């Protein structure tokens, strides 16, 4: 069993004990422990159950690649699923629970699945659950949801905070091992702005564990002196606990900084997502050791050889008393040396190479360790923990030659460079036959806007496996990025690295190579998704030849670890089954993030109050004080209505409409877009933008206009006022202000760049108040200051003046059909004017009204609303707006499009009014049916409702809708089915329900 050692533990402060719980059980760790090392120190080797078969699983790795040791951390607002125990630092009070077990980790009902595993092969879900259809929803899915799945979704609101941070650097170096440090030193000396990041809390990477001499001193000593040198450089920033998550176009890199995960204190944000712009990126991301595929390689106690020595050296933990080492390379012998030096037993090193290894093997033999060459592991004995191994010939079929008792197995199948970040943005890979791994093809790096590479790999991430090669390559990488960033590299003496020479590895993708189906069905490739060698072979047999297809069919590499351990092994098995070379089969796509990052960090500050900006008009607080019911309109909040005490919204709207029609209503119209267009060509420009003629408008007058896209569809409408010969003010819809301003600028900047026109969006400079109703003029006259009589300020005119001592511009325009003034005032005076109008209006029955009353009143008048009557497919002709399509002009945007066949089709649905027979209100969005059906047996449709309201003025339901040949079918009845199964019937009528002659507004 695993236990804590008295010696070693370079990351630990053994004097500081930390308490934590695992599945409710009190455990002790020390400062510097990861959850994985602390669990092992407590003898807890069983840490979870597998995804599909619920097999017992233990810790395999010591870093980010860990597939098995996933835990739920914390509770309530701090609950976090799928945390890797190997990258979780222990703090006092940490609470962890294992995942995917029921009812308990030790006794799991789902483990029955493992006895059914012969019925759960690759593609099982696709094959099994297709028929009968109804079984999926009621039987299969609930079962699968219960038995499969990893962490639980958090239920409470996240109690932590998160943020983003933007950084611009010349050179970003990802990875703080010796490669990253050497590259940073090189780049730093050149004076470049350098950011060096390391995902763990420690610098130096593997070198201090694996050993070696750099410039005559131990690797660890070189690391600390290099760190000191870097810290002194003002142009170099070092950040640990910060992972390079993704590399994107144009040198954009996301990095994930974990600020408080390692401590119980929670001041400040938990995670910070760095959004980095780098001229050049160095990926010094190291390499990941590969498992070997032998039967029972998933039983707790089987670990990567490198992880075993990490636990001994870094964390003073022995994974077992007796560790058998199985390898195809020299590197794993380092584990034997470290275990022996720690006083632990190594019963045997099983080397699959017939000729064994080199100098490292000799050192191990000299310590008296048995080395079995040309041998492999036939099977692992034990259920919840390793009890022994059966040794076989690697060349054979798995006949057991001898049994060796042990309680841990350290395996090494060679090393795969971490090429993820190199590949994210398009870096290509080549297959290195000698080392049996994919490494970056440095001649085909991801390119930036200039067509030149902006990512350079260094160290083990570039396939360098000896210290000397790592250092030489990293200094070269450092120089290269300095040059590519446009700076001058300084001369630097390359640090000299010395490490033990190694003999080549022998690729081993299956152990033994002739294993039968029984053994192959026990060889795990992907621990997290329970994919075995036999599954991949089956996929190949069933025709899934593409690696991407085989991946999806078997789910290999699709779990939260994204196949960090299984990728190359699975690929090799697939290529073997297809009888193809590994590079011909290729890899699946590496996608960001490198390891999962929190949703909170992605959202950053955008949560709660800051989730979205809320735009407020100058009168916002007044509306709020009146208890307005808010409606979101873009980012604005507008009052939908102002309910009084017990009033419901419908009643409030009815009251507001009636009062405005009979007395006096006030509307906050400040959100309307206001764009000033000025210049000698302004009239010509507006003639092109609007369908009707604007250049003929006289100063002092207003005109309603329609705007279409170049495809002919209506995009906006509003009133244009001519201020002077050169200047127009264009009102847009609330939602259209920014969009239409951009539309104008686009045409001016790209098409009509030589026209003399300037535009400015003045939407927020003015508050605008609609003063509406028969008493509108009275209240303005009471406040006084300007002549608002019919003669001086007639319908569709505007004038500057003062009202109640405030400078205003008054427009005589009406969207309600009533006598109406829209009063524009600079925003800072908006509230003052509003208050004055409310006070002065008391004797005239003033009431504010909201957007719904506005909608109802315009519908009663048959006025269209962009977004209701239009949906991006509607042209003015559909809405009977022919009068607004100028025949005098040669052209306007959309004109030619409106002549296309489809646009002139006489059968287009056209706007009419709809009056329900029983006076009820047609449901929003209802369609009218035909008697017949289409070829799919569905009812044909002949109309759809675009606006539908209860009209307080007419005291009945009214609607507008687009109807096939509508205007020719006045008086006909249409049937609109409702979702309750009944139908509402409506008569086709004129869309203007109220005061068709317009006498009320023109008084």
């Amino acid at each position, binding site marked *: 069993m695993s236990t804590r050692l008295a010696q070693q533990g370079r990351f630990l402060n053994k004097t500081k004990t930390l308490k934590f719980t695992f599945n409710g059980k009190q455990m002790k760790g020390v400062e510097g422990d990861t959850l994985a090392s602390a669990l092992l120190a407590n003898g807890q080797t069983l840490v979870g159950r597998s995804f599909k078969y619920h097999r017992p699983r233990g810790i395999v790795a010591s870093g980010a690649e860990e597939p098995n040791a996933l835990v739920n951390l914390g509770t309530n607002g701090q609950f976090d699923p799928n945390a890797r125990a190997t990258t979780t630092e222990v703090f006092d009070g940490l609470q962890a629970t294992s995942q995917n077990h029921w009812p308990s980790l030790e006794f799991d009902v789902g483990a029955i699945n493992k006895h059914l595993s012969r019925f759960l092969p690759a593609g099982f879900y696709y094959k099994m659950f297709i028929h009968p259809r109804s079984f999926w929803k009621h039987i299969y899915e609930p079962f699968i949801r219960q038995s499969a799945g990893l962490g639980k979704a958090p239920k409470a609101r996240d109690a932590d*905070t998160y*943020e*983003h*941070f*933007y*950084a*611009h650097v010349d050179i970003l170096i990802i990875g703080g091992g010796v490669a990253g440090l050497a590259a940073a030193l090189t780049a730093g000396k050149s004076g470049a*702005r350098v950011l060096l990041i390391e995902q763990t809390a420690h610098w130096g990477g593997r070198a201090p564990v694996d050993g070696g001499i750099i410039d005559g001193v131990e690797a660890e000593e070189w690391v600390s002196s290099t760190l000191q040198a870097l810290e002194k450089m*003002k142009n170099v*920033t070092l950040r640990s606990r910060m992972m390079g998550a993704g590399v994107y176009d144009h040198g954009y890199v996301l990095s994930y900084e974990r600020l408080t995960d390692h401590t119980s204190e929670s*001041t*400040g*944000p938990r995670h*910070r997502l760095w*959004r980095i*712009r780098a001229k050049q990126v160095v990926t010094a991301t190291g390499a990941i050791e590969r498992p070997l595929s032998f039967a029972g390689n998933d039983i707790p106690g089987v670990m990567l050889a490198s992880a075993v020595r990490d636990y001994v050296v870094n964390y003073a933990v022995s994974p077992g008393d007796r560790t058998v080492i199985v390898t195809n390379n020299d590197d794993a012998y380092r584990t034997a040396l470290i275990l022996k030096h720690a006083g632990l037993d190594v019963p045997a090193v099983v080397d699959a190479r017939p000729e064994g290894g080199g100098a490292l093997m000799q050192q191990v033999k000299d310590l008296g360790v048995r080395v079995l060459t040309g041998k492999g592991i036939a099977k692992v004995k034990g259920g919840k923990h390793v009890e022994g191994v059966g040794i076989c010939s690697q060349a054979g079929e798995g006949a057991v030659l001898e049994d060796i008792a042990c309680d841990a197995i350290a395996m090494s199948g060679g090393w795969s460079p971490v090429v993820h970040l190199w590949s994210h943005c398009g870096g290509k890979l080549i297959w290195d036959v000698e080392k049996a791994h994919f490494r970056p093809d440095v001649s085909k790096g991801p390119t930036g806007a200039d067509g030149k590479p902006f990512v350079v790999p260094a160290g083990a991430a570039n396939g360098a496996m000896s210290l000397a090669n790592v250092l030489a390559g990293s200094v070269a990488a450092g120089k290269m990025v300095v040059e590519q960033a446009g700076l001058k590299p300084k001369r630097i003496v390359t640090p000299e690295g010395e490490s033990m020479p190694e003999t080549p590895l022998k690729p081993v993708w299956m152990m033994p190579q002739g294993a039968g189906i029984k053994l192959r069905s026990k060889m795990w490739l992907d621990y997290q998704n329970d994919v075995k060698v036999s599954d991949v072979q089956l996929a190949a047999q069933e025709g899934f030849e593409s690696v991407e297809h085989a991946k999806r069919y078997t789910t290999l590499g699709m779990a939260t670890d994204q196949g960090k351990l299984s990728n190359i092994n699975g690929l090799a098995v697939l290529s073997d089954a297809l009888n193809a070379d590994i590079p011909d089969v290729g890899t699946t796509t590496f996608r960001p993030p490198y390891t999962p990052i929190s949703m909170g960090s992605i959202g*950053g*500050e*955008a949560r709660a*109050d*800051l989730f*979205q*900006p*809320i*735009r*407020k*008009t*100058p009168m916002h607080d007044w509306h709020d004080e009146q208890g307005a019911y808010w409606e979101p309109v873009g*980012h*604005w909040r507008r009052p939908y209505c102002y309910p009084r005490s017990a009033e419901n919204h419908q009643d409030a709207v009815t009251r507001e409409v009636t009062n405005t029609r009979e007395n006096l209503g006030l509307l906050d119209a400040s959100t309307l877009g206001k764009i*000033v267009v*000025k*210049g*000698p060509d302004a009239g010509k420009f507006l003639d092109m933008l609007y369908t009707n003629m604007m250049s003929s408008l006289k100063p002092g007058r207003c005109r309603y206009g329609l705007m279409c896209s170049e495809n002919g569809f209506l995009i906006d409408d509003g009133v244009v006022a001519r201020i002077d010969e050169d200047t127009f003010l264009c009102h847009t819809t609330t939602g259209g202000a920014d969009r239409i301003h951009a539309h104008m600028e686009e045409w001016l900047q790209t098409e009509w760049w030589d026209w*003399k026109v*300037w*535009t*400015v969006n*003045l*939407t*927020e*400079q*003015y508050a605008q108040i609609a003063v509406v109703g028969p008493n509108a003029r009275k209240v303005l006259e009471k406040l006084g200051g300007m002549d608002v009589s019919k003669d001086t300020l007639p319908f569709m005119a505007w004038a500057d003046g003062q009202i109640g001592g405030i400078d205003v511009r008054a427009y005589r325009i009406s969207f309600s059909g009533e006598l109406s003034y829209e009063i524009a005032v*600079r*925003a*800072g005076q908006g509230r003052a004017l509003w208050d004055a109008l409310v006070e002065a209006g008391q004797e005239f029955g003033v009431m504010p009204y909201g957007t719904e009353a506005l909608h109802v009143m315009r519908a009663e008048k048959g006025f269209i609303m962009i977004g209701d009557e239009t949906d991006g497919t509607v042209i003015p002709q559909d809405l009977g707006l022919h009068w607004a399509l100028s025949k005098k002009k040669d052209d306007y945007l959309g004109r030619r499009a409106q002549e296309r066949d489809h646009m002139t089709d006489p059968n287009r649905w056209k706007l009419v009014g709809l009056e329900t027979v029983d006076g009820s209100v047609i449901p929003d969005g209802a369609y009218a049916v035909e008697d017949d059906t289409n070829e799919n047996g569905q009812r044909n449709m002949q109309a759809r409702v675009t606006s539908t309201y209860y009209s307080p003025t007419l005291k009945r339901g009214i609607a507008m809708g687009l109807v096939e040949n509508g205007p020719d079918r006045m008086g006909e009845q249409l049937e609109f089915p409702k979702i309750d199964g009944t139908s509402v019937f409506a008569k086709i009528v004129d869309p203007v329900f109220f005061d068709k002659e317009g006498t009320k507004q023109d008084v």
Partner: protein
Amino acid sequence: MSDTFAMIEQVGPRGMMTLRGDLSSTKLKNAATGVAGVDFPGISECNCVDERGIAWMSPDEVLVITPYDEIAKDLKRMQKILSGTHHLLANVSDARSVFMISGAKSREIIAKLSPVDLHPDSLIPGQFRRTRLAQVPAAFWMRDKNTFELICFRSVADYVSTLLHNAASAGSEVGYFQ
């Protein structure tokens, strides 16, 4: 509002005029510099003294800053000089809100919210950036090495205030700009 590691205050209102036109025209330059009393800015620059200044907004737009109470007089003065040239001069004073962010780590607050390079080698007093702050448009410049003046639209002043205070929460210092 919790403790912040920099001072954030809403200031103003400030007189502001958007001037669009040919920035190489002498008349236009004279109109702007005559009212603002500062040199005409280069690309991405802002010249500001006390409450007057000129900020470069785009290749055909500058922002002229004056005391709020003098805006009417200054508008008239500029219009007079500009008469006869093709331009657009608009009073945008009420469309804007102004914030002052000051403190040794004020750069970090902006760098949490805006994709601009805020490194002290890149952004120095006199530089102007028309950009965004989280989800809204904003522009800022440095009054001195520890002080930012920031403008946003009036309607989102509450959002920006919350945003700045949140980014400045004590304990969230980044320690990046040395």
